[in-house]
């Protein structure tokens, strides 16, 4: 039991360090995109979903409607997450109302890895609260950094944003059908960028899902 707790704490510290780094790049990039200082703070507390926040920051200035639509579509995966997690966070209303807000990919992964219900609940809350805290701390650091730095292009911060995204999505691209869908969608988006209004090209990436309709090649 004690060793389980120690492993859990070590995991929590490691993931907190990573979240501070990702949160900091999010904060700095939001400022670099010319958004007001309150935007990254509000997003990190109210939305609290890394991928959707990056996506929204990339689209907000161009088209708020596209930002909301894409962000919601991205976060729709929380619905099946919630169904899988169920009462792991506790069965009372207070637990479910507060606990739901802490639900992220990482929390779900850590929680589902536990078998014992008591341990599940402990893991859910420990990892959830750790992530929320470190994510917002990182955001604040990033905003400070971004505000201190005037010219973000000379520091290469415009290259940091896509690189951060790639690091985040790479694990999911190891699955072959997902990779085909994603790369096709990305190609459509790039080709559409010169001709469509800002915001729309990224949504066009959903056309990549059509590759699933192609006849499957014989045994791979």
């Amino acid at each position, binding site marked *: 039991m004690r060793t389980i707790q120690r492993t859990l704490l070590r995991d929590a510290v490691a993931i907190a360090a990573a979240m501070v780094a990702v949160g900091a790049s999010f904060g700095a990039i939001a400022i670099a995109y010319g958004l007001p200082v309150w935007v990254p703070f509000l997003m990190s507390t109210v*939305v609290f979903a890394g991928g*959707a926040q990056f996506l929204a920051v990339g689209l*907000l200035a161009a088209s708020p409607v596209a930002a909301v639509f894409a962000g*919601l579509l991205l976060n729709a995966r929380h619905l099946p997450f919630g*169904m*899988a997690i169920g009462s792991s966070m506790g069965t009372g209303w207070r637990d479910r109302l507060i606990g739901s807000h802490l639900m992220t990919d990482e929390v779900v992964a850590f929680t589902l890895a536990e078998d014992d219900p008591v341990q599940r609940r402990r893991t859910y809350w420990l990892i959830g609260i750790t992530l929320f805290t470190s994510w917002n701390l990182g955001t604040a650091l990033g905003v400070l950094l971004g505000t201190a730095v005037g010219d973000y292009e000379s520091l290469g911060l415009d*290259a*940091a944003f896509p690189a951060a995204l790639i*690091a985040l999505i790479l694990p999911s691209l190891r699955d072959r059908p997902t990779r085909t869908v994603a790369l096709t969608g990305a190609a459509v988006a790039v080709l559409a960028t010169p001709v469509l209004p800002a915001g729309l090209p990224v949504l066009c990436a959903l056309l990549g899902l059509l590759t699933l309709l192609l006849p499957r090649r014989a045994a791979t």
Partner: protein
Amino acid sequence: MTLAAIIVLGIGTYTMRLGGVLLRERLELSDSLQRLLPMAAAALLTALAATSTLMAGSGFAGTARPAGVAVGALLAWRKAPFVAVVVAAAATAALLRMAGID
């Protein structure tokens, strides 16, 4: 507009989080939908990464930014720590610009 967009996104996200927890017994998502959602997410994020790497406005982004991202992507693929990926991408783009290549 920005404020409204963030609030709507926040409320919508929270609704889906809580919805899954509360509707657990009553709702049945089809297998294909459960499979499609993560794929749609991957497609959107990959498209955002690709367009923000290659394009600036409606034209191409030049050399420094794509080169920086390529270095970062290579490190990410070799499973380097996240911080190393981000810093290497930014540093590569910054050094290229310092050398006069944009």
